[in-house]
């Protein structure tokens, strides 16, 4: 079944966001395992045939790797607690210059369980990211970015297109190098592969730029009464010079550029403001007033720049609709988050079990069922699929 492509990509991201918020609330291995299983099931039954659908496998490997690394670190330099000894490793203390550090030593079940819980939480978060990626696809999400960011989105799309071509070109050139009887090794070998690949890539980008320009990419409209500025009649209003060199811009478009520059400066200043504000809020235990003010001003400035700035004239072809199934999917994600937040409030020992005394991970039945609710995404996505087929 492929029900993924029918749903708005943003809805999948919101669902994954909700589930990952739930995941971030717990280190209970039972709950983590349930959520991970739920996410995996949804991905396997809903991902489409598109190339990004296969990205999930990579994320799964990354998750396993994270758990492994976390355990390895615990065995090497972890904090030792508990009394259920698993194995005694030879211990080494570096000495006074690294006081408190201890390599090796007694490995306990409690310590391992704690490390597994923390590593598992991060791993399931990665799985959620992978799920969003393989169900929605970053490329499809780019289609729904706001108009002011349209050109940024195009740049990303082009980069995504060129990357696999670059890989193919490297393979092709390495083959060609073998034809000349040379095995590309070392710096010379790298150069001999890089030169044709990069010149090809440059040519390809230029061709792409031409093709995009010839099809109207980069037309702009000004959000003001002067929006007729770039109409053909206005653009040809000037004199008729018979000689053109590359880069000559007519007067009209120069004015648009100036307006664009002004908005650009405003948005850059606003972004710096946002960064400063966030820094101020994160640094202290009580948020200083200036940080709130700067952050607020920065956010307002950014929004203003996006709304008022020159934007491309582009419209969207068959935009993904946002209707009932999308709302339902978002709710499913939010439900998971709400359930785990409630669990942390009411039964903190279950949501984040203490290291000792050592217990099997356990959870009340309602919480288990609640975690299973992430699976509701499958029928909801099926609804959207039927809608599209209609």
């Amino acid at each position: 079944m492929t029900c993924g492509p029918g749903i708005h990509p943003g809805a999948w991201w919101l669902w994954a966001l909700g589930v990952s918020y739930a995941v971030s609330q717990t280190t209970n291995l039972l709950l983590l395992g349930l959520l991970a299983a739920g996410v995996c099931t949804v991905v396997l039954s809903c991902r489409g045939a598109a190339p990004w659908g296969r990205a999930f496998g990579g994320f799964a490997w990354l998750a396993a790797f994270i758990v492994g690394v976390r355990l390895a670190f615990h065995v090497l330099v972890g904090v030792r607690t508990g009394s259920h000894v698993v194995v005694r490793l030879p211990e080494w203390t570096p000495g006074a210059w690294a006081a408190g550090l201890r390599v090796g030593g007694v490995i306990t079940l409690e310590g391992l369980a704690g490390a597994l819980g923390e590593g598992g939480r991060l791993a399931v978060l990665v799985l959620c990211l992978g799920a969003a990626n393989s169900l929605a696809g970053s490329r499809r999400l780019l289609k729904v970015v706001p108009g002011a960011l349209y050109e940024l989105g195009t740049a990303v799309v082009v980069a995504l297109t060129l990357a696999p071509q670059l890989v193919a070109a490297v393979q092709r050139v390495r083959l060609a190098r073998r034809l000349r009887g040379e095995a590309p090794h070392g710096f010379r070998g790298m150069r001999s592969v890089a030169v044709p690949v990069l010149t090809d890539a440059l040519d390809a980008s230029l061709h792409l730029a031409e093709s995009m320009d010839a099809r109207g990419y980069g037309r702009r409209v000004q959000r003001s009464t002067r929006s007729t500025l770039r109409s053909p009649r206005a653009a040809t209003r000037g004199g008729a010079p018979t000689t053109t060199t590359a880069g000559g811009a007519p007067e009209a478009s120069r004015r648009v550029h100036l307006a664009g520059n002004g908005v650009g400066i405003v948005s850059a200043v606003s972004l710096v403001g946002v960064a400063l504000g966030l820094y101020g809020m994160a640094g202290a235990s009580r948020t200083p007033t200036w940080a709130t003010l700067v952050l607020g001003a920065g956010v307002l400035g950014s929004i203003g720049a996006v709304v008022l700035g020159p934007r491309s004239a582009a419209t969207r072809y068959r935009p993904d609709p946002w209707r009932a199934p999308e709302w339902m999917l978002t709710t499913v994600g939010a439900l998971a988050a709400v359930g785990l937040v409630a669990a942390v409030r009411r039964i903190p020992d279950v949501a984040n079990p203490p290291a000792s005394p050592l217990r099997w991970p356990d959870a009340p039945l309602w919480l288990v069922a609640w975690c299973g609710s992430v699976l509701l995404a499958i029928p909801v996505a099926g609804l959207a699929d039927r809608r599209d087929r209609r």
Partner: protein
Amino acid sequence: MIRFDRVSFTYPDQESPSLRDVDLTVDEGEWCLVAGRTGSGKSTLLRAVNGLVPRFSGGVLRGSVTVAGRSTSEVKPRDLAETVGFVGQDPAAGFVTETVEEELAYAPEQLGLAPTVMRTRVEEILDLLGLDGLRDRPLRSLSGGQQQRVAIGSVLTAHPRVLVLDEPTSALDPTAAEDVLGAVARLVHDIGVTVLIAEHRIERVVHFADTVLELRDDGTAGKGAPGDVLAGLAVAPPIVVLAEALQWVPPPLSVRAARRRLAADPRRGVIDRVGGDDRAHAAEPDARPVVATLDSVSVRRGDVGAVHDVSLRVHRGEIVALMGRNGSGKSSLLWAVQGSLPRVTGTVRVADGTDRESRATTSTVSSAHGDVRWWGRLLGGRPAAGRVGSVEGQAGHGACTWGVDPAALPAPAARHLVGMVPQTPSDLLYHETVGEELDTAGGGDAGAAARARSLLASLLSVTIPDRSHPRDLSEGQRLALVLALQLSAEPALLLLDEPTRGLDVPGKADLARWCRSEGRAAIIATHDVEFVADVADRVVVLSHGELIADGPVREVLGSTPMLSTQVAKVTAPTGLLTVREVCDALAALIGTR
């Protein structure tokens, strides 16, 4: 519709202009073909129509270019999108999105059309170009012809009044090319688009064209009716050359017209008789020693089988043409023979140097054939014409008891067995100058470098200065350079993948002449039937990776109209393939009378 007024254009850092005082008027609804040799400025002219030249290329343009009353000096290419649709040489290089439908919608999106308008336009173009069945397909998974149709569709959704096409069919097989050109012809009839098209394979386009613009090597141009302009042109298609040879004035431009002309020609009977003689002589076994054998070779690429169970023998001095649609496994087979692409099953054996010598001395039968037919001699320098052999001709040479598998050898040794020139020859070049490329021909072997130099000199009429950069060479010069590099290893077998792609008619003639005189066994994968007729001894046809035909050129090319040369179509069913054969036959008959 399009007006060039005394246009001259010079690229930056170049002395002489690429276009010189070009005056051109193309009327609304006209189909104008731009003809000229490689490097005569065809692409430059086409790209000047919507201002990509000089805005993207740099350089200085004098004079004025106006399209639909708007001057390109004042209007940017992007603002001309509804006026001029430009499709570049490599359709895949211009794709922005991932699927067919999105690609078609790209231009209307940029123009800011309302969603409903956009939707109807996309559907309309999908139908017009027969792309409806492909609408959800990823662009990279399409065949060359399909990609080209999508590229044309992706500019048509902006409803341009002028369509500019730069070599739309050069990389396509004959069927795909007819698909694409048929689609364009329908546009001209249905919507009345003005078409400006540049094409090396003039024979494919000329019967559609209303006018032909000739671009000369010095950058000047002249325009006129197709028959008038093409006669006497170096790049003239075979049908025009045939007309010249038979003194038909004005020359017919389509196969149909030429057949009617021939039917009325008194020499018709003579030509028919020659063809009859030819068919009477069936293929004889090739007595030359075998250089390479392929035994049930199968190759997989990714999840799909690219080549299934292909067996083939190549004799010394024999040129085998490998034909078939785009994606039929030609390149895969060549790479498998070369050894870089792993084979699933099957063996490849190539006679190594010592083996070749011993074969040469032991085969006493070879050149003693007394029955080389009279017309065979007349065909000129082709080695052993008329003695092209069947596959089973050398059954005595056991499959695996001799020769070496190139895949089993390290790369430096393998290239002495098999030399290959891939589809993009420039992949092999990475030095700053031609001199450096030649010096490193044999990995530091001075003998190889010297051989490469003399080979390059023999391949080209003009010498390339050692200091020039390989990227600055013309397509033909670059191919010659790579050929020289690969042949400096003196391989027993030469593999060429689409060597005629960027070559014009004289360039192809040079390559063909050289291939015939070299006398080296070669497998050439190509779509170019005219080139095959000129150069090959034998034709092997692949379909979906399977070998479906293997036989003498005359037999295979004569068997299906899709693989026929223009002359063969005109003179059918005589089996004559090239103008040279027709002339030689006529001359010989007159001589013997």
